[in-house]
């Protein structure tokens, strides 16, 4: 099962097919669920990676998310909400992971920072040194803005602009109203606009 790249939600045919797959999977069709995994694995993996910044742990958590989804898909009443339901499971798993990591960090020596550090790759493994520098710089900038946002602001911002969920899906994922999501998103965007370094980084990349 090759991890899929980011899918572009919105295609009417695709949405109908996905809803059918979800229905079949909830009736116990294993093959249908495997197709759903193929379709969503990349998104869920990246969503987790963006938050924990550790590839192997992100892979394990992704697997765990799909196992949990498989166990409880029969309880999903609305097939068209599958994506946000899956993201909700992922958000909960990430929160569990970060909570445990925080607890573990208490028992570690004080020089080990509990904050998320971007996973670095050695230069000899990654020949494109410039790309590597840019990558590290990018994650550093993301980490910087993430610290300036409140937990809810950060979550809605990431779900909306990194995970490409729309407002409705974001609201379903976080079990909040759309107006609440918009309010937090507005505050997050206002803070993002003040991040000159990150915006410059992005603008340079665009040009």
């Amino acid at each position, binding site marked *: *099962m090759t*991890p899929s790249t*980011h899918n572009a939600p919105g295609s009417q045919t695709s949405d109908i097919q996905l809803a059918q797959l979800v229905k079949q999977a909830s009736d116990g069709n*294993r093959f249908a*669920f*495997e197709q759903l*995994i193929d379709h969503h*694995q*990349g998104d869920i*993996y*990246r969503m987790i*990676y*963006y938050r924990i910044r550790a*590839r*192997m742990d*992100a*892979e*394990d958590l*992704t*697997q765990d998310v*799909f*196992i949990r989804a*498989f*166990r409880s898909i029969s309880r999903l009443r609305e097939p068209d909400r599958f994506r946000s339901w899956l993201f909700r499971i992922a958000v909960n798993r990430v929160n569990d992971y970060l909570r445990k990591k925080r607890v573990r960090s208490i028992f570690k020596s004080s020089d080990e920072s509990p904050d998320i550090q971007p*996973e670095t*790759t050695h230069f000899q493994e990654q020949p494109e040194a410039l790309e590597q520098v*840019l*990558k590290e710089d*990018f*994650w550093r900038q*993301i980490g910087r803005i993430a610290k300036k946002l409140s937990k809810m602001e950060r979550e809605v911002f990431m779900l909306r*602009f*990194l*995970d*490409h969920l729309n*407002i409705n899906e974001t609201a379903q994922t976080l079990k909040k109203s759309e107006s609440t999501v*918009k309010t937090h*998103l*507005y505050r997050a*965007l*206002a803070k*993002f*606009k003040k991040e000159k370094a*990150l*915006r410059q980084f*992005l*603008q340079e*990349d*665009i040009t």
Partner: protein
Amino acid sequence: MSIHNHSEPHLEEEDILQAVIDNTDLSVLQQQHLVECSQCRTRREQLEQELARLGQLAERYAPKPHKRIIVAEQKVRSPFLNWRIAFSAAAVATVILVVWGTSLIQNQQQGSIGNLAQDMVEAERLMTQVNILVENALPQVYLDIVGETSLNLDEDFMDFLIPTNESAARIPASAKKGSILC
């Protein structure tokens, strides 16, 4: 949110943010302005481009997953499976009990026989010591003084040492102590 007059007609910064989040949250006039004003549209599009680029770079700079996701097969359980498991467990428990009980009884029996044999050995040893003392009650140090470890003390000699009444009667009166007159 406000639309400025003709000399300052552009949307406020917060209106641009609102437009990026959800265009329909703007008033009709603001939406209309956004359609007509290329400057405000550019501001909105620039912010949208930055945010879109943010998502693209995050995806590009995230490492690719190597692990294949495997969802463990959910086995369909036979209704008799639980009975089978229970029966097997009971059988195993019975066998364990029997084996354990048998070995326990054997251990107890072996233990009692072993104790009895040991008691008998000790009793025999004690009786041997008693018999030795009956034969000769003198401690070893006195036997060494005497010079003979195995004295043959027969009845006559014992009578000589400790005369009985009968033997005393056979002794002449003259031989008795204090009978000779000085």
